[in-house]
């Protein structure tokens, strides 16, 4: 599903990501680990099309990475930092709006919305506005927005950030369910429990 060949990123004379090659199969979870500054987020940005590599190539489902290409946008979902949130929408409104733009079936959109919120333990917070959420709840809310849209490849940067162990467990369950349903996951994490429970393969990045 994902082919990474000698991909490296250099900014000026600083190496952000040392050249690396790897591949990820369909319905496989690749966990990217490494100390701070080894290029985990940079690699994810390259995969998500937000950053062009200075060397090497990336192909996803046989096609190049073009962030504004319609097929790529449909295929690849990413959360690297929090997604933009509208201050005038509640949690439920947000997730439902995202789901509604991906399907003509309003019943399916509503079911997906309620399912994702329940899956991440956000169903009791559905009437809150983004500014009324704690940092951990905001992280879960960001994940809910990404999980409410269809994807074949899901790219996540430290989804466990700001979460307590119970909620990390909810996230692991949600991600495993996506992988078991056929999605390809690339997840950068510092969480050993998330890595142990989710990884089919682990990519360890060394200092650049």
């Amino acid at each position, binding site marked *: 599903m994902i082919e990474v060949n000698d991909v490296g990123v250099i900014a000026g004379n600083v190496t952000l990501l040392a050249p690396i090659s790897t591949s990820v199969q369909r319905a496989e979870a690749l966990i990217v680990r490494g100390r701070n500054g080894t290029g985990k987020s940079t690699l994810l940005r390259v995969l998500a099309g*937000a950053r062009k590599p200075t060397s090497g190539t990336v192909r996803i489902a046989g096609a190049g990475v073009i962030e504004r290409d319609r097929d790529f946008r*449909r295929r690849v979902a990413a959360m690297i930092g929090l997604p933009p949130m509208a201050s*005038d929408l509640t949690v439920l409104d947000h997730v439902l*709006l995202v789901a*509604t*733009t991906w399907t003509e079936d309003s019943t399916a959109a509503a079911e997906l919305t309620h399912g994702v919120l329940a899956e991440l333990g956000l169903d009791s917070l559905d009437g809150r*506005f983004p500014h009324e959420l704690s940092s951990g709840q905001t992280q879960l809310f960001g994940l809910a*927005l990404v999980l409410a*849209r269809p994807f074949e490849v899901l790219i996540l940067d430290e989804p466990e950030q700001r979460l307590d162990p119970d909620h990390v467990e909810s996230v692991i369950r949600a991600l495993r369910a996506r992988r078991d349903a056929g999605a390809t996951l690339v997840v950068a994490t510092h969480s050993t429990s998330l890595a142990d429970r989710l990884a089919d393969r682990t990519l360890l990045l060394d200092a650049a």
Partner: protein
Amino acid sequence: MSARLRAAIGIWRARDVRTAGDRGFLVYMVLMVALVTVAPLARAVWLSATSAEGVALFASPAAPGATMLVVSSMWTGALLLGRDRGPALRPPFPTHALAVSDLPRSSAFRGPVLRAGGLVTATTTLVAGLVAGSLAMSGLSEPLSVAVFAAVGAMVGVITTVAWLAGQAFPRAAVPVALGVLAVGVTTAVVPVIQPFTPSGWVGLAYPGTSSSHTLIALAALTATLVAAVPVLMNRLDIAVLTAQAARWDSATAHVTSMDFTTAAALYRRRPYTGRRSRAVRPMSGLAWTFLIRDAIGAARTPGRLVVGVVALTASGVLITLAFAPGSPGWLLGAAAGLIAFAGLGPVTDGIRHAASVAGDFPLYGISDERLLANHALFPLVVLVIVLLAAAVVCSILTGIPAASPLASALALGLLALFTQVGNALKGPLPPELLTPIPTPMGDLGAAVRMTWAVDGVLLAASAGASAALAFESPLLLTGVAVTVVIVGINRWRHRG
């Protein structure tokens, strides 16, 4: 000021001690600004106030009533302003340190309140003195009235400061009280019989040429009572309000310093707390309808902001219509209409700002960025077409100005203001290339270019309004402004993210 407070403030100020050279430069800068900018501006204002038109305006029979409206609006605004940025404000750290100490807040925050009050009072005193001085110079009032009305101006300034502080001390009660003050002010202006019984009426009755000693005594008594209440108000200041206001002001001034006015303004954008049970997203047969309703309900969740936006758009429609009145300064009224329309669109364009943020981030919605933006543009488009055109039609009927031209200009102005809002939403941070100095024989023009970039939305909106008012005399001007607005928007869209 207690010894402890003096010591604490001293420690804070000691970290920012200016050298003799810095102090000298500051004095030089203040002198130059005073000589080059303030003095000519003050002279121009005085000449304008004492011109035949200025005197006629101040001496018109409507002037006392207008003064009552201005004063009550000022007190209303001060109450509302206090909720977001009160006069009792220090930088975040000293605010926190003093607020959590056992020092009385009436002492800890006395300095900032006195400075803010002094500035407000000096301004109102000067304005009142200017009005009275203009009339006295023309022989339309006694010289003594200058001193009397200036004193009235000073009292208005003190009352304004107390209202400002009251808004900070009682943020929740400030809204109904402000609406009450405004209602009383408007009623006073239109029902003369109650003028001797209301504060804004006392100010109107003290207007040069109509002065009455009873009203002065009443106003002085009210001012003294309110000043006596200041320590009580200050001791009621809430720590959460103080620290939140200090942090927000600190952040906003940092953004303003880097000319990021959009982010600074966003810090003061009111956030929703109501309407959460009313579903904003209602899947319908067409996504356009879904977004239209989502944006409408989203805007209604901050009702005060929405009302201000609609009132501003109405005022814009009225001004662009009045720009077609014979003998009126059309371009000036048009420019004012453009500015007000741009500001009025703010509360109804949250969706456009969200679309701009999403367009610069990873794909989230199942539609293209272009379609997302177009869908979010529907609600402000509907609002501006309805409100601007209705205001233009009603104003045309009331004033007898033929409606066709104002309607066309209002529509052009609204569309350009909306485009300008889109461009503003896509603006992003200051491009680094603008930091490059631009040496010329007159000096470095870099600062002027950066300032133009920072306020380009306002400049384009004013230009759009002026050119819309002159659309039938100079259609090329309107075309040129429209092309500029569209090019700016398209260029920012291409470079989004």
